[in-house]
C-alpha cells in the first residue's frame, strides 16, 4: 500500500510516539513533521480543527486524528506486516479496554505527580499507585502467561501505548529523586515495562533519556511557579 504518509507529531508526546511505533512495526515509510506546540502549523490546525492537537496522520492527503484511532486505521489499511491488534474479537476487546485505561486513567495522574509538590503531590502519587495496582491485577487476570502482547520482537497495540507512558517512569524518578514504579509492589508491570524498553525498536525510537529529563524538569518548574503565583 503506497501513497504519501505524513505524521504531525511532537518528540515527547506519548500519543505521537505511539503512532510512530505503529508505523515502524509495520515498516511503513513516513515523513515526520515536528510540531512546535507553542506555535502550531497552519496545516495542523486545518487537519485537526476540533482539537488542534498532535498526532495527526495524513495518508494521501486525508487526515486522521486521535492516536488510538490512527493506530487501528494503520492496522486495517496495511495488512502486510505484523498485526497490531489480535485477531480474536475478545482479545481485541481486552486490548482496547487496557489501552483506554493506560491513556485515560494512568497517564493523567503521572503527569500530576510531575507537576505538583507537597500534599497535592501526595494525593497524585496515591492516585497513580491505585491505578498501577489495578494495572498489576489486570495483567494478572487478563494475561496470566506473563507480560502482555509482545509477539516475538514486535510490539502490539498495548505495548505501543504502554511503552511511551510507562517507559517514562525512569525519567520521572530522576526528576523527582524518588521511586515511582516499585518492583516489589508491581512486579508484573515492572517486568513488562522492562521487556518493552529493551526491545530494539524501543531503543531506537524512544526519546533520549537526557532530553526527556530536561523537558520534564522544565514542565515541573513551570507548573510549580504558576501554582505559587
Amino acid at each position: 500500500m503506497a501513497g504519501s504518509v505524513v505524521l504531525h507529531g511532537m518528540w515527547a508526546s506519548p500519543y505521537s510516539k505511539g503512532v510512530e511505533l505503529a508505523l515502524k512495526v509495520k515498516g511503513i515509510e513516513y515523513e515526520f513533521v515536528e510540531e512546535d506546540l507553542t506555535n502550531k502549523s497552519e496545516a495542523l490546525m486545518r487537519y485537526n480543527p476540533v482539537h488542534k492537537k498532535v498526532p495527526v496522520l495524513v495518508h494521501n492527503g486525508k487526515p486522521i486524528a486521535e492516536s488510538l484511532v490512527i493506530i487501528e486505521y494503520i492496522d486495517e489499511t496495511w495488512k502486510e506486516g505484523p498485526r497490531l491488534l489480535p485477531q480474536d474479537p475478545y482479545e481485541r476487546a481486552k486490548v482496547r479496554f487496557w489501552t483506554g485505561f493506560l491513556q485515560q486513567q494512568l497517564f493523567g495522574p503521572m503527569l500530576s505527580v510531575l507537576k505538583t509538590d507537597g500534599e497535592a503531590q501526595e494525593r497524585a502519587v496515591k492516585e497513580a499507585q491505585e491505578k498501577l495496582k489495578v494495572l498489576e491485577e489486570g495483567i494478572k487476570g487478563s494475561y496470566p502467561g506473563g507480560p502482555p502482547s509482545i509477539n516475538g520482537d514486535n510490539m502490539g497495540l498495548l505495548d505501543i501505548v504502554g511503552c511511551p507512558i510507562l517507559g517514562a517512569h525512569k525519567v520521572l524518578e530522576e526528576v523527582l529523586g524518588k521511586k515511582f514504579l516499585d518492583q516489589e509492589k508491581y512486579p508484573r508491570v515492572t517486568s513488562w515495562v522492562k521487556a518493552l524498553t529493551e526491545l530494539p525498536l524501543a531503543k531506537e525510537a524512544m526519546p533520549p533519556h537526557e532530553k526527556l529529563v530536561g523537558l520534564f524538569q522544565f514542565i515541573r518548574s513551570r507548573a510549580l511557579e504558576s501554582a505559587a503565583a
Partner: protein
Amino acid sequence: MDGVKLHGFWLSPFSHRVVWALKLKGIPFDYIEEDLPNKSALLLQYNPVHKKIPVLVHGSRPVCESMVIIEYLEETWPQCPLLPTDPHERAVVRFWVKFIEEKSPNVWIVYRSVGEEQEKAMRESVEMLSNLEEHGPNKGKKFFGGDGINIMDIAFGGVACWIGAIEEVSGRQIFDAAKFPRLNAWKANFKSSPVIAENLPDREKLREHLARLREKRLSSSTHK
C-alpha cells in the same frame, strides 16, 4: 453460539447504548438489572477494574466499557453493521466516538455541580455541541451514519437523550435548539427511529430519579 447477558441499569446511558446496539443487530440477550447501590457479586467479579455497568457477558467472557462492548458486538456479529467498511471512514467515526466520550462527562458535571464548576462544564458542553453541529459527519442526512444509525449516533444518543432531563433538574439550558438546528433534527430522527424509540428510559421516572439524586448529593456535599 454462547448466550449473551447484559448487566445494566435502567437509568444509565451507557447501558442503553449497548441495548441499542444489541437490538439493532438482532442479537438475542438476557438483561440483568443491577441495583446499583447493591452491586451483585457477579458484577464485581466481571468488572473488578471499574465495578461498573454495563458489562456484557458472552458465554463466560466479560467485556466492559460501552463502546468497547459495541466494537466487540460489531466484530462478533457482522450483520446489520454499525461501522462503515472503508478504513478512513471508520477512523472518522471512531474519532467522533472518542470526542463524545471525552467531552460528554461535562454534561453530567453540569447536572451534579453548582457555581464555577458548573459554569465551566456548561461552556465545555456547549462547545462539544458546537463542534458536532459544525463538523459532525453526514450533514444533511438523517444520522451521523448517513441513512442508518452507526456507533457515533449510538454514542451521542447516550448524551442527547439524557440532556433534557438534566436540563430540567439542574435548571440550566445546554441544548438550545435554535443554536443547534442540525443536532435538533438529528435528535428527533434518532429518538423516533424504531429500535431507539422502544428503548428509552421513561422521561418522568428519569427526571424524578435524577432530581432526587441531585438533591441528596448537593445537600451532603461541601460544594461552594
